[in-house]
């Protein structure tokens, strides 16, 4: 079993217990047991097609495990109603590789979408501050299709954090951006971790991982042969 930082709660933010996932053609993940403790920073790495995205989808209940138990905030996902899943997702900010937005809404409305669907509206200054934090202040009124890859990634990060989630999951957040932008995104994630957020980043970019380890006590999980293992010091 892989463990993150010392746990503050009883079971951690997200816990896997002997989890397996089968896509139909064969087993993609097998016997995965781990806990993401509050405030921990993890990288998840592995070759393409190894199951990184699947692992993340299991983390926010878009997929259900074929066997084993996935627990979100001390509740097993199989026992969650669709409304329960929606409420759990408000505590999990997700940054997708393809940064899905509502293309008919301007950037500001996309960033505040989690607040909108939750029926909450924060002060306008908070949004301005957040967009400034990710460097998108001047683009608040822009439509998503007009944004560059890096801008979309930063907008996705802003949307992921606007609800003040406990956990942030990022799936290849630097996959479509240059090295400079990758470092900028990494810095933002490290800042969030220092604010107490639990971070899990799926990436195959080992340079990014090395750069992060210089700034934060990050642990590296590696998917190999369908298992998730704690990577050694070779990274």
């Amino acid at each position, binding site marked *: 079993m892989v463990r993150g930082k010392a746990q503050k709660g009883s079971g951690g933010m997200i816990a896997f217990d002997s989890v397996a996932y089968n896509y139909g053609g064969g087993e993609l993940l097998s016997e995965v047991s781990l806990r993401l403790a509050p405030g921990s920073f993890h990288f998840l790495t592995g070759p393409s097609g190894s199951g990184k995205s699947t692992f993340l989808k299991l983390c926010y209940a878009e997929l259900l495990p074929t066997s084993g138990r996935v627990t979100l905030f001390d509740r097993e996902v199989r026992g969650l109603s*669709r*409304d329960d899943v929606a409420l759990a997702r408000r505590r999990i900010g*997700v940054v997708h590789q393809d940064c899905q937005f509502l293309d008919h809404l301007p950037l500001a409305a996309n960033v505040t979408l*989690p607040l909108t*669907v939750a029926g909450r509206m924060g002060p306008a200054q908070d949004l301005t501050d957040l967009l400034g934090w990710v460097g998108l202040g001047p683009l608040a009124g822009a439509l998503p299709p007009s944004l560059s890859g890096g801008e979309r990634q930063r907008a996705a990060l802003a949307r992921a954090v606007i609800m003040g989630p406990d956990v942030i999951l990022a799936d290849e957040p630097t996959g479509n951006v240059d090295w400079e932008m990758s470092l900028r995104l990494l810095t933002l994630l490290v800042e969030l971790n220092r604010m107490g957020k639990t971070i899990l980043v799926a990436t195959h970019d080992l340079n990014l991982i090395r750069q992060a380890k210089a700034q934060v006590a990050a642990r590296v999980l590696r998917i190999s042969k369908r298992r998730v293992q704690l990577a050694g010091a070779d990274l």
Partner: protein
Amino acid sequence: MKLPAPFAPDLQADRVVPPSGAAARLTGLVAAAMAFLAVFALALSLAAGRLADRWSEALARTATVRISAPDDQMALQTAAVLAVLATTPGIAEARALSVEEQRVLLAPWFGPDLPVEALPLPQLIEVTETGSGYDGEGLRLRLAAEAPGAVLDDHTRWRKPLVQAAARLRSLGWVSLSLIGVVVAAMITLAANAALAANAQVIRVLRLVGARDSYIARAFVRRFTVRAFWGAVTGTLAGMIGVALLPRADAAGGFLTGLGFQGLGWFVPLLLPLLAGAVAFIATRTAALAKLRELT
């Protein structure tokens, strides 16, 4: 005043779903067309109901005594029948039809120049009963004794099929209305499913950021309900104008006389937009919740 949930604007929920596509616009058109047809089905149903009631009531209170007798006995038997009827409880009036009246009755079949006097026609006596009615079997026995050529026809034989036909016409009207409701529900369900499928990506994003199904469904439900309602308002008004322009009962004087609304009946079709809105609300909500479970 607070509007009902489907009509109350929820600008935030409305905005997250892209502007309506052809499916939502078609919903308004379908609702308008169906409401237009529903107005006529309703008019037919109400008119058939009135017709059935009128035939049933009017014919039930009249009867005819037909006297077939040799010429030399006709006057005698007619007088005897009138005497019997005058002393029968439940008979309000009894009157022998004149030759001229019989000519008028036969004119549609034989023309106005029929020499009624030269034909061996039976004498007809029109009987009007009181509200309490008379004893038909007792009257028949008395007539048989006093005037052997007299036959009492209380119209039962041909009144029943007429009343039944009118009642069935009324039922057909209601069945038509029900079918129109089913078609509206089916069309709106199809349109809602198409809209939901076209917005699968939007729905996925909304679910990922924590939107509940009810929140997502609300945007679609409100959109389709409002369109169906206003479409039905348009169709209903057009239908009512069409009904109002139908020939008036007195002027036409045929079978279709009175096909329309009368008095407070004019308010009945105004319920159609509300029904259309309710059907759209239920159909869209059911379709949306089912489709959401399928999509995410």
